[in-house]
């Protein structure tokens, strides 16, 4: 199976063709918002971090920034920094260049002479970049070029019964096509880690699965907290999910039945054509999705029981529910109804093939509902408080 995508100079293939206005820190985020508003075809996000962070915390932020610039859905990037933040322009540029050789411009607000001059410079860079990007034509590529990020958010019991197993079916089909599927949300492996570990392709991957779960639990215990205090959420519980183990056993269905070939740290570059892999991300949706998109995912497949509008600045997000009431209630936000699996009116094979076809169409440019509504919210995982 093939799709039409955009070839990048680093060899990867995008399904969208955006210019990223990248804020290096919170102090550049309002400026990038104003810049992106002036340039049709560009996109930005609100980076609340980038300064006053300890090394491991800053590393997450750096990896998301570099990964975003390198994501194949991006034609090129204009980095905007204030000038005095910890995520210094030269560090950000070096991190991006380690991952990609795509077009890259830089504007430092303090050196440009303040807000208006920085905006003027960045808008001109971005407009020129959008013009170049607009000349690029889609070409035909095999589905093996796709890296699919899988996510569940606002879960209820139908997520584990229908929507996540359907995502798992898609994951297996993508793996069969020779592509890559990422299973994420380490907090939602808790109580199900032994099942994933049994599917590890190597003893190293087996041990890493236990390690990331235990590390996550211990990190929260260090600050005197327990993971299950906020998870499941009140909405999960109102929907009928009682405890974390029940949520986890539903969550891991997104990984289908393929062997787990690798475990990646948060926001690290994921290799293409890897089959099923795990990324160590939080259960928090916007930051988990951001980690996978930074890893190179061009498309995100996202299940929801309660109904969530979440999108992403770079990757189209396909929304799926297994809850027939939620589908009817939030049809403007949700792309796929997986509830026929619960009521036996469609088979997994039928729905899986339909979802694979939709994924191919979205790869070719079809807008998802989150895209058409303009949802671009995101977050970046944290290690600890600011310093």
């Amino acid at each position: 199976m093939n799709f039409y995508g955009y070839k990048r100079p680093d060899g990867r293939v995008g399904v969208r063709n955006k210019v990223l206005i990248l804020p290096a820190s919170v102090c550049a985020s309002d400026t990038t918002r104003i810049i992106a508003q002036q340039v049709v075809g560009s996109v930005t996000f609100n980076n609340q971090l980038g300064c006053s962070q300890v090394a491991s915390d800053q590393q997450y932020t750096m990896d998301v920034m570099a990964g975003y610039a390198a994501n194949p859905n991006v034609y090129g990037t204009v980095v905007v920094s204030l000038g005095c933040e910890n995520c210094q322009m030269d560090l950000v540029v070096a991190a991006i260049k380690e991952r990609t050789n795509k077009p890259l411009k830089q504007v430092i607000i303090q050196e440009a002479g303040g807000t208006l001059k920085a905006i003027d410079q960045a808008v001109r860079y971005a407009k020129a970049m959008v013009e170049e990007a607009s000349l690029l034509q889609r070409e035909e590529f095999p589905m093996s070029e796709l890296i699919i990020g899988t996510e569940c958010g606002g879960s209820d019991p139908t997520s584990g019964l229908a929507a996540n197993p359907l995502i798992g079916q898609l994951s297996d089909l993508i793996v069969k096509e020779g592509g890559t599927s990422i299973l994420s949300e380490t907090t939602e492996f808790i109580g199900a880690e032994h099942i994933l570990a049994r599917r590890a392709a190597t003893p190293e991957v087996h041990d890493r699965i236990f390690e990331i779960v235990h590390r996550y639990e211990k990190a929260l215990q260090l600050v005197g907290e327990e993971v299950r205090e906020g998870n499941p959420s009140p909405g999960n519980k109102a929907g009928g999910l009682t405890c974390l183990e029940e949520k986890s056993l539903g969550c891991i269905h997104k990984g289908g039945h393929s062997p787990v070939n690798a475990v990646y740290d948060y926001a690290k570059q994921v290799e293409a054509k890897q089959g099923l892999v795990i990324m160590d991300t939080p259960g928090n949706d916007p930051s988990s999705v951001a980690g996978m998109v930074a890893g190179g995912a061009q498309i995100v497949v996202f299940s929801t029981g309660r109904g969530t509008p979440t999108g992403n600045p770079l990757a189209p997000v396909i929304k799926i529910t297994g809850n027939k009431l939620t589908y009817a209630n939030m049809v403007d936000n949700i792309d796929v109804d997986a509830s026929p699996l619960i009521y036996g009116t469609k088979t997994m094979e039928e729905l899986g093939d339909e979802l694979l076809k939709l994924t191919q169409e979205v790869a070719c440019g079809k807008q998802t509902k989150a895209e058409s509504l303009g949802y671009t919210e995101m977050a970046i995982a944290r290690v600890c408080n600011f310093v």
Partner: protein
Amino acid sequence: MLNAMIVEPKDNVVVAIEPIQKGETVTYTCEGDEKTLTALEDITIYHKLAARDIAKGEPIVKYGEHIGLAARDIKAGEHVHCHNLEEHRENLDAKG
């Protein structure tokens, strides 16, 4: 009419797939056989109810796995949720 489902045959809870009223017959299929029990209380759609009597301290089983422990004796047909399930973190390394 089917109004509930069981995920794995060894589960001791079933999931309501329609709203179920107190006293109503709960019907689900397990390995091709139709099974029934009576709901002892109203069950919200997609919530769990006990498929059989579960003694205090016994594991609650869904997806064929332990999701927690019964915090008190639970009768077949009772709603199973936060009020009668005690969360319990198991060491699963040995099962790997």
